[in-house]
């Protein structure tokens, strides 16, 4: 009996000792800095023949997965465009699901942060996941670029050190919502607007920006309604809106619910001639396909693709060839650009040893991304600001014509 007790006590002591030792060890971040490269937050060493490891934290499973799969495909096409190689090293893409919620974002971030061989992370898709996950990724020393976070606070000047190394190629809600309101009020000359959101932070904040701007311009907002992202029967909410006779309905939501609103709006009495307008969450041929003929003539705001039409249609062709279908959602191009910005930045800062070993300073990489200027991306001419906004804030409004994709640009501010 004594023996058992003794053994137990010994084990406890041993466990505590080992844990004390384990704590003293530096966690993760293994490779000793190469003599010629130093960096404030660490240097990543990639041995000869080893891959450059790029990670994603996107929502690739569950009800919102089209958003993440779409972005991931953008990254994959970008890797193909690099020939799968960067400075003689193969590019490897690893990733985690962020679930479009904060705990998913945190789990994905923690799992990625445990892998010190990752050079940069593309993600997250959802702002809620970013809020919980980015601080962890930032602490791990990664450079993070989101293809689709649009919540204003992520790149606000007071975002704090938790968000160091975070960038985005998606446009801030503040820009797009305001552009839509100006288009409706100034260009179309409409004075009564209704909005619908789907309970996602993205859509809710976008419609709020729209409503505020529309009111500021002097218009009236008749309804601010909401539906569920999986709702299909939209006639009741549209009937409510019809009772207040708006001239335009603005619903910056996603494909499924957006298509239902579009196709049903025309069948609700009082809304036969109301202008319909969506945002980039619906800027996809799938949306037009799902909404059918009702989408004819409606407006969508989206990044101004006009100047980059050739590159984008090139992208679409590659996408079609690789996946056998059209892009699933709106942020594939942003993801492509995010990946390209990272590749260009790595090419700029990586130091190559004589045997082909790459040394990448993590802080240097962040600085290089922050210094991105005039990057000719699919989504525009990208310039990063000190707080991580890299998007080309040029938003244009497009008018949908069934059977034609991409739609024709009808307006852009200035």
């Amino acid at each position, binding site marked *: 009996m004594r023996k058992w007790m003794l053994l137990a006590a010994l084990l406890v002591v041993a*466990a505590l000792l080992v844990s004390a030792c384990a704590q003293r060890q530096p966690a993760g971040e293994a490779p000793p800095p190469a003599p010629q490269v130093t960096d404030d937050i660490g240097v990543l060493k990639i041995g000869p023949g080893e891959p450059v490891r790029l990670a994603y934290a996107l929502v690739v499973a569950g009800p919102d997965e089209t958003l993440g799969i779409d972005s991931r495909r953008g990254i994959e096409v970008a890797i193909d465009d690099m020939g799968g190689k960067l400075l003689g090293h193969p590019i490897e893409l690893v990733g985690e699901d962020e679930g479009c919620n904060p705990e998913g974002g945190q789990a994905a971030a923690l799992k990625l*942060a445990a892998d010190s061989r990752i050079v940069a992370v593309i993600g997250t898709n959802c702002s809620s996941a970013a809020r919980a996950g980015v601080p962890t990724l930032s602490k791990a020393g990664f450079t993070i670029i989101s293809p689709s976070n649009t919540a204003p606070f992520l790149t606000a000047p007071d975002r704090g050190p938790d968000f160091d190394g975070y960038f985005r190629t998606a446009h801030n809600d503040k820009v797009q919502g305001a552009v839509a309101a100006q288009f409706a009020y100034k260009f179309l000359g409409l004075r009564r607007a209704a909005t619908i959101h789907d309970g996602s932070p993205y859509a809710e904040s976008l419609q709020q920006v729209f409503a505020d701007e529309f009111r500021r311009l002097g218009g009236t907002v008749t309804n601010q309604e909401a539906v569920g992202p999986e709702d299909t029967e939209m006639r009741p909410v549209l009937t409510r809106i019809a009772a207040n006779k708006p001239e335009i309905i603005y619903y910056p939501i996603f494909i499924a619910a957006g298509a239902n609103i579009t196709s049903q709006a025309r069948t609700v009495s009082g809304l036969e001639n109301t202008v319909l307008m969506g945002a980039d969450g619906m800027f996809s041929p799938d949306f037009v396909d799902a909404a059918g003929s009702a989408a004819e003539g409606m407006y969508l705001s989206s990044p101004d693709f006009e100047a980059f039409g050739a590159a984008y249609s090139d992208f679409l062709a590659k996408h079609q060839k690789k996946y056998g279908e059209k892009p699933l959602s709106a942020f594939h191009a942003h993801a492509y650009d995010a990946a390209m910005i990272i590749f260009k930045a790595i090419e700029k800062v990586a130091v190559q040893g004589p045997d082909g070993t790459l040394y990448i300073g993590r802080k240097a990489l962040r600085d290089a991304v922050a210094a991105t200027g005039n990057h000719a991306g699919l989504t525009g001419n990208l310039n990063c600001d000190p707080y991580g906004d890299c998007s080309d804030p040029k938003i244009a409004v497009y008018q949908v014509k069934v059977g034609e994709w991409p739609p024709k640009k009808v307006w852009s501010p200035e």
Partner: protein
Amino acid sequence: MGERFRAALRPAVVVGLVGGVMALLLSLVGMVNAFAGRPIITGVLSMGHTLLFLTALVTGMIAARRVLHASRGAGRPVALPGAALAGLASGFPLAVLVLVGQVVNLRAVLQNANPVLYGLLTFGRDPGAGLPQLVLAGALVGSLGGALTLLPGRVSQAVVAGLGTMLLTGLFAELLQGILWDLGVPAATTRLFMVQKGLTVAGALVTGAAGALVQAVWASQTPKVRRRLDALPPERRRRVNVALAAVGLAIVLWLPQVLGSFLSYVLVLVGLYVLMGLGLNLEVGWAGLLDLGFVAFFAIGAYTLAILTSPETGWLALTFWQALPVAVLVALIAGVILGVPVLGIRGDYLAIATLGFGEIVRLLVGSDWLRPLTGGSQGIAHIPRPVLGNIALIGPQQIYYLVVAGCIIVWFVATRLRNSRLGRAWMAMREDEDVAQAMGINLVQTKLLAYGLGAGFAGVAGAIFAAMIGSVFPHSFQLIISINVLALIIVGGMGSIPGVFVGALFLVAMPELLREFTEYRLFMYGGLLIAMMLLRPQGLWPEPTVRLELAESEEPEVPARVTAATSPGQGD
């Protein structure tokens, strides 16, 4: 003679074709493709192929068993050929797919029927050479499976354990390398066995052998140890138990140090689900009140904590410790409030009523209406971290201890409750409400206490969750959480407290560790639920009384199975 063999082999072909259809399904949903890039043994075996081989292996095992069974021992000489035949047959649907795919563009409908898949199925050769190889590989693996069935129990258990260990270490090679590094094992040593993702050939052999050895030793020594323990006088046995518990606790407390922050996070999640599971177990397992909306109380705990502590809401900005009891209390009251209207509702009606309650709570906290209070779609952020003395519990490695403390307290409360007057009242109510009432049990009070206490447990989990994540959004409180909690207590064994722990490990930790396989997580989760319920309907760690009841009710099954196995037209 030949006729008899043919009759014995027929089930093998059927099993083989079923296995082949499974393999076909796995290929067509894209798993084989997606896993092909993931090595188990680097350069030798990818996970995609492993998946197919495992299917053939299991097919072979089942086929051998069926053959043995079908001919009541007479089939023994043909069991091995039967397994090989089944493995062979399991390759056929795949071969047909590849052949059809050469002619017809299946991709227009089935997105994964693409040349990449065909390439994998033919081992990168043209179909003429690759397909025979595929079918033969199936036969080989199938006969291996058959051999496993025929070998003496101990040997085959050891082999299975060895293969399993090898696969798991290969699968989690990356995580293991991180752990070994933290433990101070030099990278050079690790490199001998594992490279980046996956094992080396040496690593595969070593881990396989180690797994087999441990299993063999375990199988031979456990009965002896148990016998010696049983022989001890009760007092000394108790001391042994105390010592074991101390060791267990020490390991539990030590874990986050070695596991690193991601695995600690997984354990924290497991802990939170254990808290919820214990709460729901009390409602469903003991009191027999089905609840599909348990997430409501988790959400209420989380939101209450968020509202009280976050400076964003401009309320009280309490500390975590001040807000925690309030959060638990609010959850508890919510439980009672839910309990009142559903008092008169029974069984499955209760399932949907409670499911509704969960949805109502989620919709309300995310609504524009309650936006001033709960932040609506934008949620509540900037929830302060708990501070203990001078230590801020920032990351999962620190929150872990909070969760462990919570689990221990709740576990203690739960075990005490179970053997209390109240616990017995719950179980009486579960068995028969009317009789329980006739015996003088106050149904109202008993039911409301079950709802309230269960909800309180979930409230603890919710509060810790909110503090760990630092923000709450309505999106985090979906129906799937309720489903997961219910599933874990059933998978663990209904009513059983240790079952909750086991169930949480299976249904929370596994999917989280497999996060990498994102798109197939829920596919595997669904398949796992079905398989577990089919193989162990009583749960992984059933409560002793349930174990007895099930053993009784299972008896009449036996003759049914025999008739099923011997009737000829079984392929339907």
